[in-house]
């Protein structure tokens, strides 16, 4: 099975505080991994460290992405290598149109892969096709990036960008937060349609709800900066019923 991501003993800090304290995780092609855990466990830190956010410092460990050392790459190199994060809080960029933003991003990724830039016509055709996949209305691509979008529209826009960039590994950081049930279903449908045997997905979520729609192969519990328990999708259901306290108790004891 093709390895996509290997995390070994990853430790990281933000603002001088150690948050990740030895994370181990392997993700292979075709797999969906869910990472769950209580507030402050380090879920968002993990996604920020993997995508190369400059505010986070790696203290130790190794991360191999598609056979390459991930931690020596800057954020844009990781993205061009096929890593994508759906942001928990997508950023509004007034004055930068969605079309201009996406055309620049798609062509940077294509150049990295040794492919020629898309012509204007080919780009617009791709845009239309992917927009339909996530049921996004055309007016959104004519607006500034995320500006004035509702919470649901922002999340849908993240999945739209994922569809445009065709990443190898997608990290969905709390994609379900702030979504009503209809928006959740559309976002999950988009993710499921984009799933292939060659790509993989890490779903970071606080609640089991999203996992009814995006069914994981593995569920991991992150607690105090470590993955303390792993299982299949039934673990998510158990967490939903019993909460996190029984895990905390068994670890802290």
């Amino acid at each position, binding site marked *: 099975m093709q390895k996509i991501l290997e995390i070994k003993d990853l430790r990281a800090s933000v603002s001088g505080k150690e948050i990740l304290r030895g994370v181990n995780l392997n993700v292979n092609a075709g797999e969906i991994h869910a990472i769950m855990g209580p507030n402050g466990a380090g879920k968002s830190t993990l996604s920020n460290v993997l*995508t*190369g*956010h*400059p505010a986070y410092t790696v203290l130790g460990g190794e991360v191999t992405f598609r056979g390459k050392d991930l931690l020596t790459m*800057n*954020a*844009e190199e990781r*993205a*061009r290598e096929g890593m*994508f*994060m759906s*942001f928990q809080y*997508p*950023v*509004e*960029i*007034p*004055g*930068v149109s969605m079309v*201009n*933003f996406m055309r*620049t*991003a798609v062509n*940077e*990724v294509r150049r*990295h892969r040794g492919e020629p830039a898309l012509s204007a016509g080919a780009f617009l055709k791709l845009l239309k096709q992917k927009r339909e996949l996530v049921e996004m209305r055309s007016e959104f691509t004519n607006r*500034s*990036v995320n500006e004035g979008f509702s919470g649901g529209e922002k999340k849908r826009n993240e999945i739209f*960008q994922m569809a445009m*960039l065709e990443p190898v590994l997608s990290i969905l950081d709390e994609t379900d937060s702030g979504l009503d049930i209809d928006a959740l279903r559309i976002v999950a449908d988009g993710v499921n349609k984009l799933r292939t045997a060659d790509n993989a997905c890490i779903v970071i979520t606080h609640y089991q709800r999203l996992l009814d729609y995006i069914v994981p192969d593995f569920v991991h519990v992150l607690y105090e900066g470590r993955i303390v328990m792993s299982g299949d999708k039934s673990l998510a259901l158990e967490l939903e019923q019993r909460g996190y306290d029984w895990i905390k108790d068994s670890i802290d004891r």
Partner: protein
Amino acid sequence: MERITDNNLIVNIAHGENRDLLLLQDAGSRISPDVVLTIHQAGGSHLRLYVLTMPGCDVNNNIRIEQQGDGCHSELYILGIGTGSQHFGNTTHIEHQGIGGTSREVAKYVLSDSSHGTFYGMLKVLAGAQKTEACQTNRNVLLTTDAAVNTKPELEIYADDVKCSHGATTGQLDEAALFYMRQRGIDTQTARRMLLDAFMADIIDKIPDTSLTEKIREQIAETL
């Protein structure tokens, strides 16, 4: 659009007349360090004035716009780009004397290296100038810790039935937006240029001469 080349000029705009004026200060133009420009607007006249200070120009602009008649409309767009040890400043005075006048002033600075910009903007509404609608905005982006701006937006209102607003903001490029763009594969330099383009667009896009705006964009992209 008329290009202003004098450094000391009074422009009278006749009743109902419509004028577009440009003061472009760049390396190619003969620059005087001090510019004094006074504009008198008669009733019902329209003015659009663009003041563009390009990298390397040490200038002090003193701009006075008087709406002497009723129903005048004035738009003043100021863009200043500072590099190196450049110093530049704009002192503006927009005075509403007539009834029902409107004005809109937008001043934007982008300052890098150890450059320094000043903006003193006075918006004055005289006692008889009822139904005036006026707004003044100053926004500045500092690209380095050594760059600095002094801004003083002022409002003086002597009429009681007017709508006026003003505001000034100074900050850096949005770090969250930069990371968002990089996470999509856009390199830092391109992302910064896109954010600066967006910041300046609402002034540059107003200029009706598109061949000139292309030149200005290129000139800014080369230096920043």
